[in-house]
């Protein structure tokens, strides 16, 4: 297995090109992740090296969109961490959504859509989908288009179905998709009222009045500077008393962050924005 390896100078040049040509700032992405991701893109698109990548992306806007899509890490499973989804289903959702109207749930980076569909399925089963407004944003237009179509990789079924069984032992995930030939098609009625937003990378135009944010395992691809910036954006998007769920090995931990958020479930990393 031989891989192309990017040097530090090459990596900096690529970051500079993306900034200069498209005004997209990737310098606060986690370096190991960014480097590894670009190395993969260079191999997958036969670009040979950093110069090949820079030439292609400078002159080809479509390739820039492909690059953004491939920078978003595809979720490898639905209902990742079933214990979290059980908490959402049995405790949090009934408590905070029951009786609400237009309860806004935001996915700041919806990626390949597994978290969105997992949430929609639980809400549907709880008969709460009608009470919510799902908002899904992504830096990738291509990713959004793919998610809207509800097309999923059939290979994921072998992980998804057992995960779902750990949340709903008496139901079948296949009630929500059709599997024909080589495609799995999610029931798009689950997301017919979902609002999709193409974000630029600085998220200067984010939704407000949000009651719940699901942002698991996305900030791990940022460095601490960008993580803190996102946590502040989310703070401003959330109503007082609103909730945020992050990955179970992520923390909200900046200077004085306990004045802004209360950790209400440590095992599942669920935080609540303080009332004042």
């Amino acid at each position: 297995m031989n891989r192309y390896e990017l040097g530090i100078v090459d990596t900096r040049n690529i970051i500079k090109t993306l900034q200069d040509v498209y005004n997209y700032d990737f310098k606060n992405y986690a370096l190991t992740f960014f480097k590894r991701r670009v190395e993969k893109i260079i191999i997958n698109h036969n670009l040979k090296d950093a110069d090949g990548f820079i030439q292609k992306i400078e002159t080809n806007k479509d390739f820039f969109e492909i690059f953004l899509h491939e920078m978003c890490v595809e979720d490898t499973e639905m209902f990742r961490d079933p214990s979290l989804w059980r908490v959402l289903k049995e405790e949090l959702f009934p408590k905070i959504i029951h009786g609400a109207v237009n309860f806004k749930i935001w996915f700041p980076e919806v990626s390949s859509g597994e978290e969105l569909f997992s949430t929609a399925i639980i809400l549907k089963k709880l008969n709460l989908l009608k009470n919510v407004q799902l908002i899904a944003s992504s830096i990738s237009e291509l990713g959004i288009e793919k998610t809207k179509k509800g097309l999923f990789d059939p290979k994921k079924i072998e992980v998804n179905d057992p995960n779902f069984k750990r949340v709903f032992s008496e139901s079948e995930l296949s009630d929500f998709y059709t599997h024909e030939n080589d495609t799995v098609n999610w029931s798009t009625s689950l997301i017919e009222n979902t609002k999709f937003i193409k974000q630029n990378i600085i998220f200067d135009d984010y939704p407000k009045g949000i009651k719940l944010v699901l942002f698991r395992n996305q900030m791990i691809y940022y460095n601490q500077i960008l993580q803190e910036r996102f946590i502040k954006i989310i703070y401003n998007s959330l109503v007082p008393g609103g909730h945020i769920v992050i990955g179970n090995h992520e923390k909200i931990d900046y200077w004085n962050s306990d004045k802004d958020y209360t950790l209400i479930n440590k095992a599942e990393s669920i935080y609540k924005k303080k009332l004042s």
Partner: protein
Amino acid sequence: MYKAVVIGGSAGSFQVITKILSSLPKNFPLPVLLCLHRLKHVRSGFVEALSIKSTIPIVEPYDKETIKPGKGYLAPSNYHMYVELNKRIALSTEEPVNHSRPSIDLTFETAAQAYRDKLIGIILSGANRDGAYGLKKLKHAGGLAIVQDPNECQVKTMTEASLKLTTVDHIFTTEQIISFLLKLK
């Protein structure tokens, strides 16, 4: 002179790793990065099992946690564990490598980028080839490559794959690994 130890293992490595961790002095001077294949759905229990025997504290790190000497960092279940150049842990949910997440190759490769020739890498018993490529990268970056003696391994595949790909510095039994680590200052 070394700054970190990275250890990879899979099937048959649990006994070996607990033996190593129970033999280290409390003030072991280096951080120990552990990438061990584990069950995806069993999130808790593993770090506790290792901690019972270990003389140094073992944690499943949070993303961007700073790596400190005298502490063990176990790759959490269903995440890859990388080392950033600024010696912090970075986690990832990118697709499995060698059917593994965490992948030993990725922990070794990123640790080698961060620690260069100040890194000791140890591959233990295991049933697949994950880790072989990572050990090669570690050696290439100037690190010290150690492989558990395949004759002692419960499952030889991982150590043999590593030996095939890299001319290692030492082939050690568990006892020899321990006495080597005890000499580190």
